[in-house]
């Protein structure tokens, strides 16, 4: 009986150490990714904490500690997807963090892109963000979204088409006014 308790304690300690490693390695990227997906710093905090809580609760399902980052990435994407789908009010405006690495003035192109991005389906927004913010390859995006790479490719294609159309139209307008 005492031995069983000791084993459990050791496993508990390992679990806490593993979780602390995950937080150390993934927290910043997770929070920023959530902010990009949700376009709301406050909600990104909520989502990140939600995802970490789920990760802690499901820790026993993690078979390979080396894969903890990707495993957690999938949890985070699911949490953000749920939040985006629950939203009844679209994000009306997003003011980029002035301390972010790219505080350039919001150009008309960027405004137009944001509007177009917000108009994409939730799943399309996710694949675009994972591809162009995290620079993940298709396979990694497929792993995080839980769909086949072919589906990711298709979603990305249609999303980029829509974004490109808006971007080009805005470019033409900008050129014409010069």
């Amino acid at each position: 009986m005492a031995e069983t308790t000791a084993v459990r304690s050791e496993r508990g300690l390992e679990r806490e150490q593993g979780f602390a490693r995950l937080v150390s390695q993934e927290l910043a990227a997770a929070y920023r990714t959530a902010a990009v997906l949700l376009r709301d710093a406050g909600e990104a905090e909520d989502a990140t904490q939600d995802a970490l809580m789920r990760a802690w609760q499901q820790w026993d399902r993690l078979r390979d500690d080396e894969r903890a980052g990707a495993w957690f990435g999938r949890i985070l994407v699911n949490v953000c997807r749920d939040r985006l789908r629950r939203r009844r009010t679209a994000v009306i405006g997003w003011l980029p963090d002035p301390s972010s690495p790219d505080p350039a003035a919001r150009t008309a192109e960027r405004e137009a892109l944001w509007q177009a991005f917000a108009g994409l389906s939730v799943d399309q927004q996710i694949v675009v963000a994972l591809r162009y913010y995290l620079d993940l390859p298709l396979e990694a995006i497929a792993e995080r979204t839980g769909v086949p790479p072919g589906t990711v490719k298709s979603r990305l294609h249609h999303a980029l088409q829509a974004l490109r159309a808006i971007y080009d139209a805005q470019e033409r307008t900008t050129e014409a006014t010069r």
Partner: protein
Amino acid sequence: MSEQSFEDALRSMLRSAAPADVPASLEHRAFAIPTEMRTTGHGWRAGRTLRGLAGALAAVVVVVAIVSAAVLLRPVVVTSNGTTTGIPIGVASVFGAFSASDLELIIGDQSFTGGPSGWSHPSGGVGLDASFTGSSTFGSFELHWIEHAAPMTLVAYVAANAHDWWVSEIVASEGRPDGTGWLYFEGPFFERPLGSAYDGEAVLTSSRSTDGLTATLRFGNLQMTAFRSGSASRDLTKGTEPPPPSGGSSGALGTVPDFIAVAGPTGGVGYAPQLLVLGTGPTNGYVGAPPDVPVYAADLRTLVGYMVSGRGFVPLAQAAATPVGTSTPPASPGQATLLPGELVLATTAPGSAAGGTLLTGVLGGEVRGDHACLWLTPSDAPTTRLALVWPSGYHAYDDPPLQLNAPDYRVIALAGATLSLSGGSPAPGATPTLDEDPCGLGSIFVVSGVVSVAGVMPSGAVAMPSATP
């Protein structure tokens, strides 16, 4: 345009949304998850779900461009022997952020801390509800919990201009088992430039209460900021509420000033926050009557009094000296002496029945013998006519049209004006007397004060009696 420049633009756009730094509070909470989940279990999660729902409901009620009302709470921290060591509270939304190592509200010999016996969720968890929402210039941080078997509410009102934000007032429950009664902590507090947070301990003493109690409110290691979406970038506006566009519900909130002019019996007395006057604020979770509506001077910061249910406007000095719930002696009944042209008006004694409702609609009226029938058609119920019973001392004249006068005979409004009135209706089933409802409309609204008047105002705005009684 090349594919590369398009992709660069896309990357740049997405990166612009990524905050540079991770909030320290998130980092702290993240590492604490194993400890907190172990001590509070699934109850905490259930509590968070409820809080999320509360936030979402609040966002719907506010009817302004609130992006979301996502709410984040820290759990009750319980020591190994099961006693509560304090209630760390953290609330973060797109509008504002609040965190404190603990709170303590001391009322007499009772101390309220947000627990510890706490509020039992159906799931068995422990926690409190919280929200932090608002518009571009006004908002509120709210906590709801149950302690010592009393439903408790704490609300901090926040305001901002183009440069600064501040807490204009804090109200809290008195700790009565029926949940009624309010403590008022008169601000402004915690004023800071927009974008920066208040950081420090806070110990506040109440300035008045419904039942004459005195309380102390303490926040440990308080960190608070509001309007963090950067929406407050203009000065506060004040004025009268414009009439609705076509007799329907109130006009777009964008056309209504942030603070609405409030009239007392002797004229304009100050300005009350739009969200409280129009009832579009985020709070709906009160037990009993809502808190009195604060009225500010022209600087929109200096508190000058309150719109008190059943009493109308009460100046600050008087409000502080007298417990709000203490009824004042009834005035002499009736209007023994009528001036030429004056009509008998349904009035009631100060302090008599009236709830905390704010009602907006169009004033209607007709002369019935020597009585003035004045009614209000609510903006949200255009087929309803509520007979109005006014505070003692009000007068009515048939000039024509019918006009309503303050006790000093200043004209308050003419028939056809849009009024916002505070007051309340008697309990359902009560039959109005003929004096209260001379036109037999069947339903009455007992007015405690005229909050605002818009439209159909006389040019002179003062009507003096033509004879002295």
